[in-house]
């Protein structure tokens, strides 16, 4: 019996080593396109000229999947406590010849966002804190269409590329309060690059146009509740809150991405990104009276060193700084539903600083990525003074492994774990003068902003190559769990099936 067990163990170890050995030679398109080894380059491939060179192989995929998440209590009330979002996505990266590449993606997503509260506007992360909100909320339905495509080519030492991304999204609720947000988002990127000796330099510009029409309707007259024009940290624009429920957002911005990296050799690399986006909130029912302007300014820089030979190694440091400034327009006396703007005051200020250092190491069929960082979020409403700050240090470990159990099968295993520890937090609010509902909202937000988080998860993908065909089938499933020190937790699940070609 003991001999049999020993033999079984030896066979198992032998098969595992053999599978790993085969997988290490797996120079497939799938490995190249799904490897986390490209993560240090993700900033750079926002430049379409460099995107064209990011992959050597052509790869296309059609996937049907679902993303699900559930939180025992909403970590951010405005985003709800979970979602179930099925999607259909097709993506392709195709090398036309040695010099030119095209890529594209089209997707349709529809589903439900659960228990969204204090938010009747779509794209919360982009537009917060300047949203429309109510205390009731409820589930919302979401539907998103997105299309993107790009082209890159090289002429001697020059690289050129262009890319366009379009997103159309609507979010609505089928019962009171019947919120509706319809978003159109267009981004255009133009990029260039130049091979200077052993180095590749890249520069790209990006332009964005954003629009959202947003409204809330009530069908039951006796159930009408006020809709608040939120202005940050539990404040609202009282004069235009209540029954003013039709507005729109007009926005857009620009970005510049600069990059330098060694060509096919070891050496230092660097990325710098600057971007500025602004979003104007206007009241549709009062001759487009401007209510608030939000300015998002961001600068990010990465510096690292990479080695690509028998094994890949990269060490890197990154810093990100985002400044959000909110201006409130002061409406004068009305004249036939026209409100002149008599002043504009900067009332909301937010700073987000994130910095991390990390290392990525891999050998053909496996990669491991470690990062350690610091993140600080500070929000301030100038008068009456309100402030909410929180800072965390974190560590994150991520691993990926490709295993080929047989000639036709390829397994991709991904796992990650991270821990965010709160180092400081501060809350300053005029609670004595605040409405009970707003007090409760702020306390809820602060509780989760200042909590510690432990996150871990895993994902498995199985690919099967069809006989005598360039097509393959795949299935993917993954789950993750986040434990929050506020005695709450989050579970996430993802699965998809599809074909590769």
């Amino acid at each position, binding site marked *: 019996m003991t001999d049999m067990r020993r033999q079984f163990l030896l066979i198992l170890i032998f098969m595992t080593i053999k599978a790993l050995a085969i997988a290490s030679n797996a120079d497939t398109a799938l490995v190249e396109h799904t490897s986390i080894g490209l993560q240090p380059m993700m900033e750079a491939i926002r430049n379409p000229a460099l995107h064209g060179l990011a992959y050597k192989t052509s790869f296309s995929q059609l996937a049907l999947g679902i993303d699900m998440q559930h939180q025992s209590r909403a970590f951010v009330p405005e985003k709800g406590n979970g979602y179930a979002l099925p999607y259909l996505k097709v993506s392709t990266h195709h090398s036309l010849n040695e010099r030119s590449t095209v890529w594209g993606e089209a997707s349709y997503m529809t589903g439900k966002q659960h228990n969204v509260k204090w938010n009747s506007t779509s794209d919360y992360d982009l537009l917060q804190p300047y949203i429309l909100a109510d205390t009731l909320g409820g589930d919302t339905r979401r539907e998103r269409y997105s299309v993107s495509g790009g082209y890159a080519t090289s002429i001697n030492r020059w690289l050129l590329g262009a890319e366009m991304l379009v997103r159309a999204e609507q979010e609505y609720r089928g019962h009171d309060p019947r919120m509706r947000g319809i978003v159109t988002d267009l981004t255009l990127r133009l990029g260039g690059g130049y091979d200077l000796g052993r180095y590749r330099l890249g520069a790209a510009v990006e332009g964005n146009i954003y629009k959202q029409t947003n409204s809330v309707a009530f069908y039951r007259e006796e159930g009408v509740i006020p809709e608040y024009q939120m202005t940050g940290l539990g404040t609202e624009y009282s004069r235009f809150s209540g029954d003013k429920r039709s507005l729109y957002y007009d926005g857009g911005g620009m970005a510049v991405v600069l990059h330098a990296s060694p060509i096919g050799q070891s050496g230092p690399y660097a990325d710098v990104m600057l*971007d500025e986006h602004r979003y104007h909130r206007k009241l549709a029912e009062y001759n487009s009276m401007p209510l608030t302007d939000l300015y998002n300014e961001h600068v990010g820089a990465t510096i690292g060193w990479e080695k690509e030979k028998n094994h890949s190694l990269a060490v890197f440091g990154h810093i990100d700084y985002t400044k959000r400034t909110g201006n409130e327009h002061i409406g004068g006396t009305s004249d036939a539903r026209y409100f002149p703007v008599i002043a504009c005051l900067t009332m909301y200020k937010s700073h987000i600083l994130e910095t991390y250092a990390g290392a990525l190491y891999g050998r053909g069929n496996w990669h491991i990525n470690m990062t350690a960082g610091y993140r600080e979020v500070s929000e301030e409403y100038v008068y009456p003074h309100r402030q909410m700050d929180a800072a965390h240090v974190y560590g994150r470990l991520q691993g990926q492994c490709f295993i080929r159990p047989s000639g036709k099968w390829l397994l991709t295993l991904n796992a990650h774990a991270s821990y965010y520890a709160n180092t400081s937090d501060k809350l300053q609010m005029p609670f004595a003068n605040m409405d009970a509902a707003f007090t409760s909202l702020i306390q809820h937000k602060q509780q989760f902003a200042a909590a510690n988080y432990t996150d871990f998860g895993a994902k498995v993908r199985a690919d099967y190559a069809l006989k005598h065909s360039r097509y393959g089938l795949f299935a993917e499933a993954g789950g993750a769990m986040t434990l929050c020190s506020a005695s709450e937790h989050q579970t996430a699940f993802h699965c998809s099936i599809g074909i590769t070609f």
Partner: protein
Amino acid sequence: MKHHILFLLPIALVMLLTACAPVEDDIFTTAHITVTGGDDVTVTSVQAQVKLINVNSRQVTTAADFDGVSATVELLRGAYQIDIEGVATCQSAENNIRMRQFRCQSDYVEFVGRDNNEVTLKIIFLD
């Protein structure tokens, strides 16, 4: 084509650097509020409470420090509704001096200048 992209980059950089958020940190101002008795009555001093309600945010600012017939209030720039209630020392055309209860009210006054916003309100006597 490649030269066009090279030209685009500095233009975009300049646009980014000049497109910084327009910050208006001068959010407070000084309002000088004066009460007057009109043509028939001369008001020499008042003791009253001024209540200023911000029309947009509904925030309430109060003050009670009158210097003669004027009060100076530090407040957020904006449009206000003003209510004043108190007693005034009045001198009639016949030089009779007496204390009278009064109130002043205005539904809309703009205090949007960065400094020295002035407004004069006519007293309504309650007796």
